[in-house]
């Protein structure tokens, strides 16, 4: 038997759990762990430039790879800097383990240097958290953390380790891990058979059904089952923002995103449906608009691994608690043994859907002497679609334009902060995604506002010579807030002018990236080609775009799904 100290046990346990990549930032309270990481041949450590960046990187890594992302930070400010990033992962149900150092147990509660109650500060934004009070707790807690983070509804778990538990002086036997069992935590996997049967019966009776896919389908690796189900029954498919890519958007059976800035036809379908089969979505306010007016004629079948998501905002007529992949598998089995209606029975529904698509397709008008942001996204899509890129975004207009104009055909291709809406997510998430998938094309579509919130992480991209393509839709304003001000606040642009932005091209140079600007009149396609040709480092393209662009369609607040502003005149 091997005797190891606490820090070495932690590193060994991480190795045994299959961790190969950690994103972190050292400090006094984790220096023992860093000292042990220095010996590890299996774990590579990426030094972030800010703890928020480190956790977003681990998050991007997790979203791109499907594995648990791991971050390591020090106590006090190291830990508090991670809060936004942990909350980001929590809202989008991303499996993360965040390891933080803590002051020695004897100092806890004394307001020691760099002491903060990390478990307390992060409590509302974690799935669970541990404070290891003795060295022997570290390994069992880490194993539990991985188990909790990666099962059920996934999410971030914090493990706070006091400095004296890591120390070199105290060694003890390392115990090999067995199966983790927690009596108080047993996520439901299989759907209730009776409910599954009822759901299938209703689905076969429905004449205006719709399949709504959320982030749980992506995170639960249930896309194949969703696709089979949709194709078997010829269901129109609508995705939430987090569900984009669960079903191929370029397939005519897919109507794209619903909600506040969803596509006209997608919102009409929801409103007109007689049955919504919702899988792995939580009926967020941005998706449903006013829940009282949501899908008035529809029977709601809701499959979710989290019972608390069911009937939280929208009442589910047929709730099914269980893993999305397993429950849809159960449904497929039931349907295979059932007499399926001829798919032609949905002809009138599809005719109506095609009519909706025809009358208000997604579009924009070109304007002389201006680069329209939609045009840039359209061009990026056109130029990169055959390269199957991973696309990260920040938050704002560019994010919605990406959701609308970039067609995602596979899951884990769109990486974006949907629930929390964290500006600054895009660049570090791209770094994390590129770490997870070294040979792949990773794009970061961002805005001039968001980009400045975590741009220091470009140093990491530079260090690893990552060929990220960072496309800034630079309109010199905070476009999403500004469009509210344009429409609802009489053009009073309070606090939304980003005048005195840095010169992003010079900044690219300072960070060792290629950088150039694209002005109105320049060839957008050629600019994208030029960026794609840069292979040995990141490339920043600064597109000077129309300041007055508005994301459309735009649902009217508190209205039904189909109360939408469709043109720039406000109609």
């Amino acid at each position, binding site marked *: 038997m091997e005797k190891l100290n606490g820090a070495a046990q932690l590193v060994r346990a991480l190795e045994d759990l299959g961790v190969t990549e950690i994103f972190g930032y050292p400090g006094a309270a984790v220096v023992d762990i860093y000292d042990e990481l220095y010996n590890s041949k299996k774990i590579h450590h990426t030094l972030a430039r800010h703890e928020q960046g480190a956790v977003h990187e681990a998050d991007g890594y997790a979203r791109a790879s499907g594995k648990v992302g791991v971050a390591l930070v020090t106590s006090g400010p190291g830990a508090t800097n991670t809060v936004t990033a942990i909350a980001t992962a929590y809202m989008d149900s991303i499996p993360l383990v965040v390891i933080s150092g803590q002051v020695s147990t004897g100092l806890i509660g004394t307001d020691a240097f760099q002491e903060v109650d990390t478990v307390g500060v992060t409590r509302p934004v974690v799935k669970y958290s541990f*404070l290891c*009070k003795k060295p022997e707790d570290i390994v069992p807690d880490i194993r539990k953390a991985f188990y909790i983070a990666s099962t059920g509804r996934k999410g971030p778990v914090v493990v706070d380790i006091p400095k004296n538990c890591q120390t070199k002086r105290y060694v003890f036997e390392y115990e090999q891990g067995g199966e983790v069992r927690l*009596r108080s935590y047993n996520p439901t996997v299989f759907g209730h058979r009776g409910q599954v049967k009822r759901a299938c019966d209703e689905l076969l009776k429905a004449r205006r059904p719709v399949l709504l896919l959320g982030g749980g389908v992506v995170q639960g690796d249930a896309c194949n089952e969703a696709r089979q189900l949709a194709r078997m029954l010829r269901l129109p498919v609508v995705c939430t923002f987090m569900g984009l890519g669960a079903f191929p958007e370029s397939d005519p059976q897919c109507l794209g995103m619903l909600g506040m800035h969803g596509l006209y036809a997608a919102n009409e379908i929801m409103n007109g449906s007689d049955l919504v089969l919702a899988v792995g979505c939580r009926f967020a306010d941005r998706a449903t608009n006013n829940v009282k007016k949501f899908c008035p004629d529809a029977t709601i079948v809701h499959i979710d691994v989290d*019972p*608390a998501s069911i009937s939280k905002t929208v009442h589910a007529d047929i709730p099914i608690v269980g893993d999305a992949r397993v429950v849809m598998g159960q449904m497929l089995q039931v349907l295979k043994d059932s007499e399926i209606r001829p798919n032609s029975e949905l002809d009138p529904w599809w005719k109506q859907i095609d009519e909706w698509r025809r009358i208000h397709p997604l579009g924009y008008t070109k304007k002389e002497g201006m680069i329209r942001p939609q045009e840039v996204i359209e061009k990026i899509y056109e130029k990169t679609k055959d390269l199957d890129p991973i696309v990260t975004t920040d938050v704002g207009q560019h994010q919605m334009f990406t959701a609308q104009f970039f067609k995602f055909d596979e899951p884990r291709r769109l990486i974006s902060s949907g629930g929390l809406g964290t500006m600054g997510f895009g660049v570090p998430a791209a770094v994390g995604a590129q770490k997870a998938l070294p040979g792949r094309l990773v794009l970061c579509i961002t805005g001039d506002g968001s980009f400045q919130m975590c741009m220091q992480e470009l140093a990491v991209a530079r260090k690893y010579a990552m060929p990220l393509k960072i496309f800034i839709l630079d309109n010199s304003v905070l476009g999403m807030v500004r469009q509210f001000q344009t429409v609802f606040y009489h053009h009073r642009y309070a606090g939304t002018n980003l005048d005195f932005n840095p010169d992003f091209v010079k900044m690219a140079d300072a960070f060792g990236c290629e950088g150039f600007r694209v002005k109105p009149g320049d060839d957008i396609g050629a600019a994208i080609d030029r960026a794609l040709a840069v292979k040995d480092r990141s490339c920043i393209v600064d597109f000077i775009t129309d300041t007055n662009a508005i994301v459309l369609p735009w649902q009217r607040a508190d209205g039904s799904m189909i109360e939408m502003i469709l043109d720039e005149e406000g109609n």
Partner: protein
Amino acid sequence: MRHVVSILIENEAGALSRVVGLFSQRGYNIESLTVAPTEDPTLSRCTILTTGESEEIEQITKQLHKLVCVLRVTAISEEPEGGLERELVLIKVPTPNRGIREDIKSIADIFSARIIDVSAEVITMEYVGSSQEVDNFCSTVLKLSDVLEVVRSGVLGIARGNHCMHS
């Protein structure tokens, strides 16, 4: 609507703060809260008196159950045979003269309250009953005498019949 929610949680540091945090985080009310270890010292039982519509209570119990440290949750009033509730109150009254002392003693007798401490000028009583009964007891004492201190335990709840939280 008033609801008594019973929660079986791991008896570990921070578990209670997760339960309480959930209530404030999601905007639910806590009217009263009690917690103590059970016969199994690794578990604590927590009873929370809350108010809300039944959909809200359903959401509260689901959210509580989602907490990793929570083993079981039941809304006592929703149990098939209903629930039992008890509350303990300790009440300290000044007894400056014999007349008042006699009055207090007879009130204690009528309510079957116990006098648990007597000093030259103060009597302390304990009384156990439903929240309604505790309210009645306290208001009766208040009508008769000044009151120095009132301490209520908060509601404890248990299901009627053979419905149990364990096993």
